[in-house]
């Protein structure tokens, strides 16, 4: 993000540890989504249970990251880019923690779906999942590099995910209209789709924070445009 290092190497290290922590947390949530989706497509209930159990680690890491950030605020009185980085990190860790919860939601739905016959082959959901995983990765990457263009790309992808979600809804609606016995399964799949769509929202939230971190301007809300 910036080539110049702090005079205090200890401070430099503490900031770096927060960056590393966010990357690690991001990798954990990405893995959780992957595993949750795999438990669905491969009908692997054991794997779904594993995702649910592992969420504790994500929660603990979130708390730990938040504590580190608060400690730096109190002890180092950061300013300018450092201040914006730390406040951004607090928000990002919150987004990642919520993403972890959504992976758990997907795993829970997978367990229920795995108990019933498959309604249809899963094609769009894995595609959606691939997109949101990339969004998380790219959003965190844009944070490390302070790359505004990469953050913008994440925001653009969110629209693609939204469209996919709507398409899945429409498709499942036809299943439900044709056969009322499919309603329960179709609703569960809708939940999965909705959770992926919300993960994309959180990834966009991370990208928005990166834009704030780099420029100092908020882009999170529609009203922010008016202020500029």
């Amino acid at each position, binding site marked *: 993000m*910036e080539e110049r290092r702090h005079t205090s190497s200890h401070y430099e290290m503490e900031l770096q540890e927060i960056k590393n922590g966010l990357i690690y947390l991001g990798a954990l949530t990405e893995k959780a989504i992957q595993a949750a989706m795999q438990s669905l497509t491969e009908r692997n209930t054991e794997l779904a249970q594993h995702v649910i159990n592992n969420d504790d680690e994500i929660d603990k890491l979130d708390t730990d990251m938040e504590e580190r950030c608060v400690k730096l605020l109190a002890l180092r009185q950061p300013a300018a880019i450092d201040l914006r980085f730390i406040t951004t990190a607090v928000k990002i860790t919150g987004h990642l923690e919520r993403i972890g919860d959504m992976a758990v939601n997907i795993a829970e739905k997978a367990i229920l779906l795995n108990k019933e016959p498959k309604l249809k082959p899963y094609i769009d959901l894995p595609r959606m999942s691939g997109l949101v995983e990339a969004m998380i990765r790219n959003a965190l990457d844009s944070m490390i590099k302070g790359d505004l263009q990469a953050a913008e790309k994440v925001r653009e992808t969110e629209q693609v995910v939204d469209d996919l979600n709507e398409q899945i809804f429409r498709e499942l609606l036809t299943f439900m209209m044709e056969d009322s016995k499919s309603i329960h399964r179709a609703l569960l799949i809708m939940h999965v789709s909705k959770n992926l769509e919300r993960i994309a929202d959180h990834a966009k939230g991370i990208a928005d924070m990166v834009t704030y971190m780099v420029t100092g301007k908020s882009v999170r809300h529609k009203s922010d445009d008016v202020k500029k």
Partner: protein
Amino acid sequence: MDSNIIIKLNNVNFYYGNNRALTDISMTFRKNKVTALIGPSGCGKSTLLRLLNRMNDLIDGTRVEGEILFEEKNIYDPEIDPVEIRKKVGMVFQKPNPFPKTIYNNIAYGPKLASNNTGDINTLVEQSLKQAVLWDEVKDILNQSAMKLSGGQQQRLCIARALAMKPDILLMDEPTSALDPISTAKIEELIEELKKNYTIIIVTHNMQQAARISDETAFFYLGNLVEYNKTEKIFTNPDVKHTEDYITGRFG
């Protein structure tokens, strides 16, 4: 000059012998605001502060170019009396430097010496000490030596002494660097109060202090004015990378 502006510098250069300590500084100071001058040692911030009441005149071999306008007049014009300027532009230094006299006389000395002051000196002493939030602590010991006061009290006495001359501007050169945190907090609180009636320009190495008390901040480096903006902007999102590197502790 805009009525909100009290001092205006136009292309000011300053030399110690052949060494240029300030390069082409143009800036304005706003009335009833606290302006902080920050930057690493040797950046020219204290030199600039001392230019504003012609304190640098006292150093041999120094030279000023450009103009510094105060009340529409260039304070470096030959017909201007530096003593008159120093009455209107008071100064408080890094280390408290009370006169080895009583508390009362520390305040009364200047106004008595300035022959044009015919008002009631007792009232002036009380007023000045009250403005410097020292009155309650010293009202019963006005005839005691000022040297017996604590460092923080001495510094507030020096502020009261400067206020007794009824200046428009108060220059402060690291006024709290020799004080403990409580005394520092008291001086900072006092600065907030004083800006209602005075314009304050403060040099500080303590960036949190600049962030806490100033309305505007100017960052100097190697004799150049690098960035000058609202304090909030400087400490959250400065325009210049160099400013950011300094305030985030990447050099200096």
